[in-house]
């Protein structure tokens, strides 16, 4: 927390939690939000930040990112990931536990938190494993994980293949009020598939994984959520069947939440063909058909899908610059998420308010995290975004170590110019100073 008093003036404040959308001044004092009002007198010694033409929003919260530390620091570290997050307007990221060793105990959780504290950048909330060692056999110690600082549980990267284990995980997690974030795919249906099974995979001669591989697991786990009363969160939802299932589950009042990634909202399987087998378009779940993308967009707009989460997955060139079949799954996304989702707003698929909500209040609510709103006396986690800023996506200039982005070389519009964590300005876009 810093002691500085900062006035963010002239910006359009969008705070869906408070229902605010209009020109306001945001005052930060002693690291907290002091005031959000239309007309505020600024004392001369206070620092002023000119936010005219820009949006001022609660710092974004990402429920799903892979920071690779401990064990795969060549791909990313907590520090580089936290820096990339800030560049994208995210003041908080949840770190997935598929590290080496996986985060199934307090020591790894504490390491992640220690690295985040050393970096002093975005907040990092560790996510613990559902099963010991991510093996899908035994439950990890949820109590210890929660006490050490985990905010949720996930075996992301793999599904929990055993329905019996999934049932027990949902039940046991209730004791610690932890949401369970699930990576849904039936491995036997996926087989050796490397992209979505459909016309494009047929044309490219690549083995495909059908959307049903995701849907059957979503349906299974919704039934288990109903059985156990647990908090089920579906990670990176990608197909119409899954959206339908979640919509129906919510209608029946079940505690099921869901997230979707910017790439599943913006890209489709055709883009793998158009890119010429570029592995920057290879991820799991894969990019799907036009109908699936439409369903995911509609699901986000109508609240079936609660929030946007990046599934930021950095890999090194060794893992990505190979034949499509052999390339690792995953793309980076923290630094491009806002621009990509803003394009959806311009296309009419999403409202501005819903976009901000899906990145702020909704993720906070879904995992029960602090932040996501510009509430009085709350720690001042704030992002200033320029929705008109045009920039060329050059991965060589990313803060993340990963260069695997499907938007490489694209012209994007929309970027974070400033990010505050606890009232401290921890990120500023070069050239954005006025």
């Amino acid at each position, binding site marked *: 927390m810093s002691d500085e008093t900062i006035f963010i003036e002239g910006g359009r404040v969008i705070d869906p939690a408070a229902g605010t959308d209009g020109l306001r001044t945001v005052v930060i004092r002693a690291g907290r939000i002091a005031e959000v009002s239309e007309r505020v007198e600024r004392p001369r010694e206070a620092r002023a930040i000119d936010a005219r033409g820009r949006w001022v929003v609660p710092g974004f919260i990402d429920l799903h990112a892979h920071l690779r530390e401990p064990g795969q620091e060549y791909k990313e570290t907590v520090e580089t990931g936290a820096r990339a997050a800030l560049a994208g307007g995210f003041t908080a990221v949840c770190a997935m536990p598929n590290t080496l060793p996986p985060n199934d105990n307090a020591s790894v959780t504490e390491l992640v938190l220690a690295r985040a504290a050393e970096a002093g950048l975005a907040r990092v909330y560790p996510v613990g494993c559902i099963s010991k060692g991510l093996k899908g056999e035994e439950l990890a110690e949820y109590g210890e994980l929660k006490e050490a600082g985990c905010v949720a549980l996930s075996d992301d990267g793999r599904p929990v293949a055993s329905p019996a284990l999934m049932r027990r995980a949902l039940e046991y997690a209730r004791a610690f009020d932890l949401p369970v974030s699930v990576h849904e795919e039936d491995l036997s249906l996926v087989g050796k598939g490397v992209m979505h099974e459909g016309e494009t995979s047929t044309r490219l001669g690549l083995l495909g994984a059908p959307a049903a591989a995701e849907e059957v697991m979503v349906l299974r786990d919704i039934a288990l959520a109903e059985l156990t009363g647990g908090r089920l969160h579906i990670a990176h939802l990608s197909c119409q069947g899954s959206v339908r299932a979640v919509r129906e589950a919510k209608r029946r009042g079940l505690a099921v939440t869901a997230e979707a990634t910017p790439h599943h909202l913006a890209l489709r399987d055709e883009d793998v063909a158009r890119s010429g087998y570029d592995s920057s378009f290879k991820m799991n779940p894969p990019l799907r058909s036009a109908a699936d993308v439409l369903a995911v967009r509609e699901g986000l707009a109508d609240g079936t899908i609660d929030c946007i989460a990046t599934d930021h997955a950095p890999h090194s060139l060794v893992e990505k610059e*190979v034949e499509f079949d052999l390339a690792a799954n995953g793309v980076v996304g923290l630094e491009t998420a806002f621009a990509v989702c803003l394009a959806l707003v311009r296309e009419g698929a999403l409202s501005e308010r819903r976009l901000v909500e899906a990145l702020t209040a909704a993720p906070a609510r879904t995992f029960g995290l602090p932040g996501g709103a510009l509430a009085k006396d709350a720690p001042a986690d704030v992002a200033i975004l320029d929705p008109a800023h045009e920039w060329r996506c050059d991965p060589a200039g990313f803060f993340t170590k990963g260069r695997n982005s499907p938007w490489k070389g694209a012209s994007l519009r929309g970027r974070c110019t400033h990010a505050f964590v606890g009232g401290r300005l921890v990120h500023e876009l070069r050239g954005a100073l006025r």
Partner: protein
Amino acid sequence: MIGRHRHLIGLEDLSREEILQILTLSTSMKEVLRRPLKKVPTLRGKAIVNLFFEASTRTRTSFETAAKILSADAVNWTAATSSVSKGETLLDTARNIEAMRPDVLVIRHPAGGAPGFIAARVACAVVSAGDGAHEHPSQGLLDLYTLAEHLTRVGGAPPQAPPDFDTLAGKTVTIVGDVTHSRVARSNLHGLTKLGAKVRVCGPPTMIPPGIEALGASVHYHLRPAVEGADAVMMLRIQHERIGDPLLPGTREYSKVWGLNERKVKEWLKPSCAILHPGPINRGVELSPEVADGPQSVILEQVENGVAVRMAILYLVSGGAPDQSTEGAARA
């Protein structure tokens, strides 16, 4: 160059005219194969490297023969399947070979997209000898050539007449077998539709990929309606070795339902219908021995034409410095 293409990665990328350019040239190349001295000095001093990441004697030998007839130096390089855990990546292998300055790289690889991946990163010309289930352009071309040759003969032309590639327009060709995993099927589908033929695919539902209709084929699960009235039937090899994904109960039932034997050929196929197979044949599974060796089979012609077609391909991609503008006719 093939039209505006420096590399030959697939038939999907080629226009009808570019395909005809290769086929017409193949006719002249076939004449060379029939000479007493089967050698011309055309590609003397050019180095053609066969970079095969998948075992294949016949395609590799065919390319090698084609190169040698054109007096090029042919070098074979067979790698264990590329895998990051085994050491050298595909990219490193290709770059190492390229450092030895070949003029043409002929690449066969189990991953779709691999030849294109290499072509974008090396300076020499790249010819795909098959990538995963994606394309096998030289096979597609030699099948088109063989079909045109057969149809020209059937159409009453004198035996010495060169194949007329317009004969493919309006004809029906049926492809039978594991279409999902077949690069031969895909290349043929692209080539045949570009030359105006109608394509039917036939096989068990587990072996017909989704969206194949969008590529121009009509789908049949039963063999008889698929082959009745067809001008040519192309049988694909059924691989027993697919572990973990049970597409068939076994080859016995496949052979009964989708295999061709003498009786089915006599009762269901037009007498003028040609029977093709890219090889190697599983005798008794896709084709009975009598059909494979029978009068309607053009399988051996396919092999001979394969050398001519590959000569044409190597000649075109080795042709010249791509940066220079086209010169006028040679000075006599």
